[in-house]
């Protein structure tokens, strides 16, 4: 638990969690942000801890790591397995249940579409890794099921 040492360890509950340990767990699961711990932000004595914590949790400039799903167009062969297998696509686009391509124009929450023979990511906002709760946030269906290994999930 690399996060816990940098927290105040006072269990003041200002972040909305019962203990600092619970807050650390929530930070790991992405259910809380570092800024939720107001003592860390307001009190000067925790300044160094705050910087170290932001570095651990986010990029070098203190921002949170962003989700990127990249499709390698040279490897992709347009098979459309990502379109059919993605659970978000399956929920909002009825044709994908029988393996068909979704209708055009694309649905609001549709994630993948095969354009001009290559897979294309439409809108990352609807991805389960951002929207869902609990274990669904660990969704790696598109990366696992691509037969050409052309899809990569990265945090940058």
């Amino acid at each position, binding site marked *: 638990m690399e996060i816990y040492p940098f927290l105040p360890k006072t269990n003041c509950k200002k972040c909305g969690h019962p203990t600092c340990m619970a807050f650390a767990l929530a930070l790991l699961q992405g259910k809380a942000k570092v800024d939720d711990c107001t003592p860390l932000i307001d009190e000067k004595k925790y300044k160094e801890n705050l910087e170290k914590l932001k570095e651990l949790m986010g990029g070098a400039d203190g921002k949170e790591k962003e989700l990127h799903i990249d499709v390698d167009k040279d490897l992709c*062969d*347009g*098979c*459309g*397995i990502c*379109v*059919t*297998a993605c659970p978000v696509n*399956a929920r909002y686009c009825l*044709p*994908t*249940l*029988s*393996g*068909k*391509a*979704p*209708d*055009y*124009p694309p649905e609001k929450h549709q994630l993948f*579409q*095969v*354009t*001009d*023979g*290559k897979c294309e990511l439409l809108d990352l906002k609807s991805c389960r890794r951002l929207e869902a709760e609990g274990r669904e946030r660990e969704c790696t269906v598109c990366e696992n*099921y*691509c*037969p*050409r*290994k052309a899809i990569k999930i990265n945090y940058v």
Partner: protein
Amino acid sequence: MIRINCSGCSLLCDDIFVNTNGSIIDQVIGACKKGKQRLDQLNAKNRITSPMIRKNKELKKVSWEEALNKVKEIIKNSSKPILYGFSTSSCEAQLKGIELAKKINGFIDSNSIICQGKVLNVAKDSGITLTTLAEIINKADLLILWGANIADSIPRLLNKALFSRGKFRLTGREIKTIIMIDPIKTASFEVMQMRDTALYIQLGKDIDLIRFLKENISIDREIIENKIAGLDKEDIKRLIINLMNAEYGVIFVGQGLLKSNPEYNILKELIELVRAINSKNEKGRLSLVFLGGHYNMVGFEHVALSFYGKNHSLQFSDNLLVNTNDTIVNKVANDDFDCSVIVGTDPISNFPSFLSSKLASKPLILIDNKKSATMEVADVFLPSSLTGLECEGLAYRFDHVPIQLKKILNPPSDVLSDEEILNNIIKEINKK
């Protein structure tokens, strides 16, 4: 955006959207790499849009009248013409081709004879359990790929068969089992998960596996051999358990199985194995699916069977169909022809070189839309349009379901459809 049927391969997907203004296509949604390649052929760099005749060893552009005259001259000077190809033509064009063969006492055959081969023939003798794509999507829980590398030949089939959530298989991929039998680890193996089995069979030993399974399909009997066809005892046991307990199993048969062990009748033994399994398995049934490349290979067999009672290798004499055991392979190998009409295929690239030499040594008329090796040896070239895009027609999917292909663009001027070209040849020969 309009919805079209793709004619890139024998899957004939009907869920493709294209954006067109009537003269070009600038975006396509849903089609895989092969479908996109088919659409790109509309404006391909090496597309040929004018009739040509070989003069002084070079192909020169000529008018349709001159080209058809030359065709008539070649055919009138021959007594044993052969016609070959037709797997990239619509059913209407295939029927016209057979009509032309009948008129000129010719022999006609399609690509299926060197690919899927005599599937419907064997079916006539012993019956065969086929299935359709909709049934596979809605019911299949066991898929076996035997000698078939689907990811490289029909990319969207794995998507539709394995990852779909059909009416009776709503959990999708998690409830389906896939078994792959192939000597080489191909790209298709990447979709396998925990409960699936990869069987790296030894090259050329498929007949041993089929015969072993036929003898041992009861799962009570103990297997004494340690290795069969290069496979471990445990893997074979797993395969047998899966085969005997599937509710709806499908075996995809590819060239790797059909072309191995040419000295045996692999097709007949495979059908007997499937029948034996079906009679023992009370819970469900096993079906076969034969995969082919070109989009209307199955269509020729249906057209020939429906109109003339024979599904391949038709020989005509005096306007009647005569009995023959010849196929295009031994007609060419035995020099039993004196001119050839090739439609929509490239035999000089795809036949063994000694057969290509024999084809190239006699007058050759080619009906196609682009450069190819056969064009380099052809005496007459007649440009044809792309069915499913520039002309309409009927085509049969790999699971024998007929699909109507639409016309969405006009072909370049001077380019006619296969059906019109064959019709013009018949009219030219009829002229006195």
